[in-house]
């Protein structure tokens, strides 16, 4: 590839519990949940009530601001409960699945013959429109605009992430269909980024109707935000959409089979996962459905939907997120460690800095836990963040602008180009233990409020 982009800065977190490439079981859904909290800024409108029966593909939620965007049930069954939190915020719609799955028939359609509007309509009606994420801000895509371009990252560098080549091995045709469909929604083309190391090894380099890029580097080289920054940075007023290969497969299935079929291979990973490998399941899968992967008798496991940097802590009774194809199980690190910071060697802990000796064992994997490893302080070190962020922005200045709520500065320092996930590594290495992702998240919320 001629236009390979090499990223020198970054960090692969050496956490143990990588999923072996085998399928342990196909999870037969019992109770699944649709969670409006998976979508940033969504004001949900409930379309069903307890006791209603739904099919796989029946809308259960809609966006209040844009009622055409709906969210569908991944299973056929009965609405069991509508779970609300503080201030009656809608958290989950739990659906008890039937024994045999019935799908809403959206009809098999030939993408070639469809117009952009027909494609949009098909996606919106089926509940697959939320697969498209709009930047800046990482919100649901606005159906009324034509984005500058659509970006796809065909590899993941996140810790223990599901291997896309393996997880989507049988989905090539569906993904090609989806690419052809989405290509009609933009004039800038579909940009797909590959890992240069594995370019020839991945089947997806044969995708047609796309603009290809390759990247070399450690995490976060696989983050689509980093890739956009290097391919075509987002300027003020511009909008791009991103979509994951996983969602492309679902979109392709919609056109090829007429079904809202969200079945995916999910990597169950992490130091606390017993025999980490893959399962076939649906988004909204309950953690209880993968019981054989953990022993939580000590109540010390954190259940993360997603990876350890950006995932959501859903708890033992929680459910897999809409976009996620990974569950990470790690230990809650609620232990006091005597004089830990002063010990010359803490050989069971990893540090990206050389203040410990983990650089001597570069191939070792660590059983990481959730301990913060220190107290929260003001920003002190200023050069550790740039080393893990392969973007031409100043992360500390951006974070401080977000803390100060200074819109002008946030804009100047690049708030349009980042999402929380892009700065997750900055948060990981921060010796002051500052919650950078939460700060960026607040900053993005403020931008959305002020710039409307």
């Amino acid at each position, binding site marked *: 590839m001629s236009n390979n982009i090499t990223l020198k800065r970054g960090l692969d977190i050496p*956490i143990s519990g990588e999923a072996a490439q085998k399928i342990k079981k196909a999870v037969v859904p019992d109770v699944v949940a649709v969670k409006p909290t998976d979508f940033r800024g969504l004001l949900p409108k409930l379309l069903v009530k307890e006791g209603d029966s739904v099919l796989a593909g029946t809308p259960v939620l809609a966006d209040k601001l844009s009622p055409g965007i709906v969210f569908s049930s991944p299973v056929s069954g009965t609405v069991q409960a509508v779970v609300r939190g503080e201030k009656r915020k809608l958290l989950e719609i739990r659906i008890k699945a039937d024994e045999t799955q019935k799908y809403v028939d959206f009809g098999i359609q030939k993408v070639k013959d469809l117009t952009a509007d027909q494609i949009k309509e098909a996606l919106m009606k089926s509940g697959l429109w939320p697969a498209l994420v709009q930047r800046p801000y990482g919100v649901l895509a606005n159906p009324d605009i034509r984005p500058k371009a659509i970006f796809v990252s065909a590899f993941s560098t996140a810790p223990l992430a599901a291997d896309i080549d393996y997880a989507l091995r049988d989905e090539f045709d569906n993904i090609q269909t989806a690419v052809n469909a989405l290509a009609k929604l933009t004039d800038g083309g579909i940009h797909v980024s590959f890992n240069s190391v594995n370019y020839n090894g991945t089947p997806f380099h044969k995708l047609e109707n796309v603009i290809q890029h390759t990247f070399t580097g450690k995490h976060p080289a696989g983050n689509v935000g980093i890739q956009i920054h290097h391919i075509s*940075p987002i*300027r003020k007023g511009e909008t791009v959409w991103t979509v994951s290969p996983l969602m492309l497969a679902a979109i392709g299935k919609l056109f090829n089979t007429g079904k809202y079929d969200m079945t995916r291979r999910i990597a169950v990973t992490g130091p606390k996962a017993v025999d980490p490998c893959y399962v076939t399941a649906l988004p909204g899968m309950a953690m209880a459905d993968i019981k054989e992967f953990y022993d939580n008798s000590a109540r010390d496991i*954190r259940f993360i939907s997603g990876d*350890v*940097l*950006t*995932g959501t802590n859903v708890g033992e009774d929680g459910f897999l997120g809409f976009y996620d194809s990974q569950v990470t199980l*790690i230990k*809650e*690190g*609620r232990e*006091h*460690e*005597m*004089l*830990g*910071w*002063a010990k010359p060697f*803490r050989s069971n*802990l*990893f*540090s*990206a*800095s050389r*203040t*410990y000796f*983990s650089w001597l064992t570069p191939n070792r994997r660590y059983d*990481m*836990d*959730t*301990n*913060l*490893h*220190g*107290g929260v*302080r*003001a*920003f*002190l*070190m*200023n*050069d*550790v963040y*740039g080393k893990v962020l392969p973007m*031409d922005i*100043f992360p500390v200045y951006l974070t401080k602008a977000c803390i100060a709520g200074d819109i002008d500065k946030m804009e*100047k320092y690049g708030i349009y180009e980042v999402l*929380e996930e892009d700065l*997750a590594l900055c*948060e*990981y*290495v*921060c*010796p*002051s*233990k500052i*919650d950078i*992702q*939460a700060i960026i998240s607040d900053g993005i919320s403020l931008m959305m409020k002020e710039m409307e």
Partner: protein
Amino acid sequence: MNGLRKLTDKIKPAFEKGGKLGFLHSTFDAFETFLFVPDTVTKRGAHVRDSVDLKRILIIVVLALVPAMLFGMWNVGYQHSNAFGLGWGFWQMFWYGLVKVIPLYLVSYIVGLGIEFISAQIKGHEVSEGYLVSGMLIPLIVPVDVPLWMLAIAVAFAVILGKEVFGGTGMNIWNPALLCRAFLFFSYPSKMSGDTVWTGGLSRYLTEGTAYATDGNGLVDAFSGATPLAHPSIEGLQQAGTSFMDLFIGTVPGSVGETSVIAILIGAIILIWTGVASWKIMLSSVVGGLAMGYLGYACGVTDLPGYYQLVLGGFAFGTVFMATDPVTSAQTETGKWIYGFLVGALTVTVRLFNPGYVEGMMLAILLMNTFAPLIDYYVIEGSIKRREKKVKVA
């Protein structure tokens, strides 16, 4: 170990909000987190975090200062022995230095940490460990004979007005340790400069006529007591019997920890290897010092070749330990090059052109601390403009 943990857990409730000793919460917390890494887990954002924290980073800086401190202690005894012709052995010298330097440390830490604890208590914050390093630095950059009460006032000034009023560690504009030294320098110049302050025991000898309790040894005839910076010329150094190697090893009078370039270099290697301090600042400061030094040499302002400037006075110490303070130095990578270069160049400029004030390091760093945000501002503006142009072309 477990017993201590149990005890801590037992007395902890008393220090929590509403507890009997709740007003001492920050203090308790400081001791608890000193003894034990807290059991807090990540709540928002990344679920796992790096094992490095500020305590670890600062303890590395303290460790890097140990060679300079140990050498300084020995050198205090060595200078004293030389001045009074005592002919001491190694351990006698070291012991004398230890006895002279330990009180400086006690004052520095008791006053400084005391204020840190009190202000954390008032603000209800956790006690920040930033002063561990400042407290380690301060005794190394003052003359060994500085009266302890002066040091106490200076430390209080530096911590309160240099740090706490800005919001504590991480928010300050100037390096607190240097601020402490600057306070001493301008408030009590007679104790901070001249030929008599650099040798341990000399002040007492001059006022009380006795320098060492055991005998009445007088000063040796050849004694000068001046630091090499007082006569910065080849001839001056020769007359004082100071060679380049003496300056490099550090067997000359001066502030406690600043004399030995070797000990400082060991510290520099630790700091650079662990990535705790910026090698860019160190390198550019050295380059700046050399450039100015050789410029002065070429123009005939001094007959000392440029490299002498690096081993004289506090240049090495300031470059390695003071200019690299991550809070008060430039934050951007390009800014660090500019900042470091100007620190080095300004130091030597002051030395060459101001005979009344020979040590430029302190004020050069404080001045550049002041300008570091400005440097960063222009670096960032420049970077943003360049990117805009690039994007427009693309």
